[in-house]
């Protein structure tokens, strides 16, 4: 079984199908899961690489982008010496 990849689908053309329509197509796709839909311009999906490539190929004006994590900003220590 192919390894699942998590990808961002980003709407890049103004005449591309809207987010809701794209989300519906993903829900109907057999091998791709829609993980999040809370942006007016992008969707978070998971699936095999081949399935994602096929999906993006049919979504004119959309592109697939890799996911990246950001570490929580360092909350620097606030006190060096304690009273007393």
């Amino acid at each position: 079984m192919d390894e699942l990849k998590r990808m961002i689908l980003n709407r890049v053309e103004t005449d591309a199908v809207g987010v809701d329509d794209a989300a519906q197509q993903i829900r109907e796709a057999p091998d791709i899961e829609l993980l999040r839909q809370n942006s007016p311009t992008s969707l978070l999906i998971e699936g095999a690489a081949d399935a994602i490539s096929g999906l993006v190929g049919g979504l004119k004006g959309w592109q697939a982008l890799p996911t990246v994590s950001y570490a929580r900003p360092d909350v620097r220590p606030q006190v060096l010496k304690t009273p007393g």
Partner: protein
Amino acid sequence: MPNVSGGANLIFDETRDDAGAVDDWGPAKTHGEHGTHVAGIVGGAALAGSTFRGVAPAAEIRSYRVFPNNGGDAQNYDIAAAIARAIADGCHIINLSLGGGAEDEATRAGIGAALDAGVLVVAAAGNDYRKPVSFPAAVDACVAVSAYGRSGTFPDDSVEAPEVVRPYGVDPKDFVAGFSNIGPQIDVVGPGVGIVSTLPEDKYGVMSGTSMACPAIVGFAAYLLSTRPELKQATGAERARLWKSALYGAGRPLGFGRDYEGSGLPRMS
């Protein structure tokens, strides 16, 4: 929170089952100090009995949480989604006190869309002790902010003391924070050492970082927008261009050099 004005929350799906997180505009349950401190620097309101206030206390602040409510890393999907939602909501400025991950196209695209919409994106340079400016501050579209401090504004035996390193400014009390990243992408410098601001549960406390310098510049950018009619009248990428020009034009070099301070510390003329 009574000590930070304005506010509308945007909570992602991960917190929808947490009624408190959905209903309250407030800090994340875990590690909420950082965002609360940043918000207070931008728009903390003066309360009775307190002399504290943010740089732009009349600004309305919206919180777009990208770090999970229960702690952990942020995903670039959430960062890009937050930027897109902020644009759609009509926000004027986006503060990004985050960074350091691998360069990612989704966040870059979001920042580009913000610029095209006339939204100013201000980002912290990073706290990696003189390493290159981190992503996304290094993106041309962002206003990249380094951090400086001033001796005498914190105790000599505080955790801030080791950050007092060269280069010093024309006024030798001024210094570029030892932790601050630097490089040719730096646009302006802001105060980021020993900064007092808001904390959860109506408290106040001290933090240091380019995360603190960034919202100080955001507050100043809000001041510019409120006082420069040409910025209000302009739209789209032209407004972002004029806004950046006004911000950099207000910069007063402290004597550190361009790679450390860009055009300097923005000040009212």
